[in-house]
């Protein structure tokens, strides 16, 4: 597989607060990549930076060789009108104009692009609605007149109507019930299988990614801490934070389960050092942090990479007592 999107050394700063720090991530054509992390870890900022909604302070974002961070004015508008990268917002109610009908919303990108006539746009809108499993009768409704699950699919239909090559979905199922959640996740998988669309799914819920993603990238404190094939990352996490995530998600099956308690610092835990802004982003919460963690670890490995000074050693330091307490419980 070739690299479709490459993010290299990305820094995003809001009011002197560094939200993303030296983040590098490659997305391969045709894959489904899950990006996971807790609230405030920088997942949404990363996606918004890719589409040009977050200010990039340093680093490069390239899409098949086109430097997206260098695009300005008319060039950026022309690139956007081509519709190759589509961003699906997190909150469907806020991302849909309350005064526009579903048909108008789905058609907007095509109308702005200006390459199709009215009949062709209408046909594309009908096809997009069918693709996401929405009844054509909803086309004349306003966003306030349809359900949350339907609104989420309208967002998807608006994106797929442009036949993008990369779809960035920001928490696409976080506000949905289990039935709608599975439906939307299946839709994303179908899109990749049938249309070859590369999909990036942002989520704070590991279990929603486990069924569909090929690879997963884990963010913590604005840094990428681990990325790799989702099956291997979930079964044998190499970063303590990833291990804590998998241990905290009851629906994710692991071959060698480590209780979450063993991965959290003890109540009387004292950090070994004062961890400044250049330290490992997880150091202050990590029970395995040492003096070495005052500097940010480099990301080692290509297919499966991890940013931890103790990636190969922390398991041997797991508190035996914590492990046994949980197992017997």
């Amino acid at each position, binding site marked *: 597989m070739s690299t479709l999107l490459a993010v290299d050394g990305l820094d995003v700063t809001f009011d002197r607060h560094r939200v993303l720090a030296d983040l590098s991530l490659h997305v391969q054509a045709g894959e489904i990549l899950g990006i996971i992390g807790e609230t405030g870890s920088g997942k949404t900022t990363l996606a918004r930076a890719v589409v040009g*909604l977050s200010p990039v302070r340093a680093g490069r974002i390239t899409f098949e060789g086109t430097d997206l961070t260098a695009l300005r004015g008319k060039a950026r*508008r022309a690139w956007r009108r081509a519709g190759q990268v589509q961003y699906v*917002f997190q909150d469907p109610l806020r991302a849909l104009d309350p005064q526009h009908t579903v048909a108008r919303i789905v058609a907007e990108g095509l109308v*702005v692009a200006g390459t199709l006539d009215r009949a062709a746009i209408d046909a594309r809108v009908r096809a997009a609605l069918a693709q996401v499993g929405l009844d054509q009768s909803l086309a004349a409704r306003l966003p306030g007149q349809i359900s949350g699950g339907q609104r989420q699919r309208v967002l998807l239909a608006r994106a797929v109507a442009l036949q993008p090559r990369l779809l960035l979905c920001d928490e696409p199922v976080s506000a949905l019930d289990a039935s709608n959640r599975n439906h939307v996740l299946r839709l994303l998988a179908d899109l990749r299988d049938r249309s070859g669309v590369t999909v990036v799914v942002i989520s704070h819920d590991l279990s929603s990614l486990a069924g569909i993603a090929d690879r997963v990238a884990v963010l913590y404190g604005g840094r990428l801490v681990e990325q790799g094939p989702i099956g291997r990352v979930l079964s044998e996490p190499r970063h303590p934070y990833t291990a804590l995530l998998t241990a905290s998600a009851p629906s994710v099956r692991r071959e060698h389960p480590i209780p979450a308690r063993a991965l959290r610092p003890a109540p009387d835990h004292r950090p070994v050092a004062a961890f400044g802004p250049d330290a490992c982003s997880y150091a202050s919460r990590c029970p395995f942090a040492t003096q070495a963690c005052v500097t940010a670890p480099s990301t080692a490995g290509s297919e499966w990479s991890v940013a931890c000074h103790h990636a190969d050693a922390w398991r041997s330091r797991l508190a035996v007592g914590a492990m046994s307490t949980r197992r017997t419980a």
Partner: protein
Amino acid sequence: MSTLTAVRLPSARLALSVLAVVTFLAVAGGTVAPHDPLLQDPDLALRGPSLIHPFGTDYLGRDVFSRLLAGTGTTVVAALESVGVGLALGVLPGLASLWLGRTVEWVLLRAVDAVMTLPFIVFAIAVTGILGNGLSQAMVAIGVLFAPLFFRVTRAAGLSLTRAHYVEAAELFGASRWRILRTHVWGKVVPTVAVTAAQATGGALLAVSSLTFLGIGVQPPAPTWGGVLASELGFLSQQPWAPVIPAALIMVAVAALNALADAIRPGGAA
């Protein structure tokens, strides 16, 4: 509540009925007047209401009812002119301050702050003193002073929309600023601007009446509502009831505009 629903309210219906009558009089007031509004008859000066002169006569024996009917057009057009100037100078810069960057925003905000310090009537008097004593000049001056109101209201209504996700989505489709304003912003700003325009028209009616009362804008003997009020006030000792008629007319028209504005105010009609 939508504007159409709001119009079904009794208060809105009454307001619309009053405004329909005012509009009719503004268009056809001169032709339906029973007497020539300029015809003087010293023998009939300062007469009380009668079948021939329902609102009596003024100090020159002119029929007050006919003068009020004939003056409606000038008064209403002048009020609308000032509101139109205010809309033109307020709404577009209000939107520009949101979408054309920080420099434009800073300059426009400071300009508006400066204009807001000017007092209405004194500024209008100064403008007519410089540009000549005409109603258009006076109304343009009033319109300039209305502009900050429309600027602030438009800006406040549009401020939340600049970072609305559907506006960002439109930007991501490559939509131009003009298209975003047209398709996503305009429809949400217009109801608020319409309410403000209705209220401002009420204020403008008072302003044009005040100016003509002071003799600024319309020159005698041309009739206006404010002019009639001014002439009646000069003879308060002889006819204390007389100023009540033009004053009531101004008050009813302003109240109708305010009632209509209140009824169509988004989310606030009751």
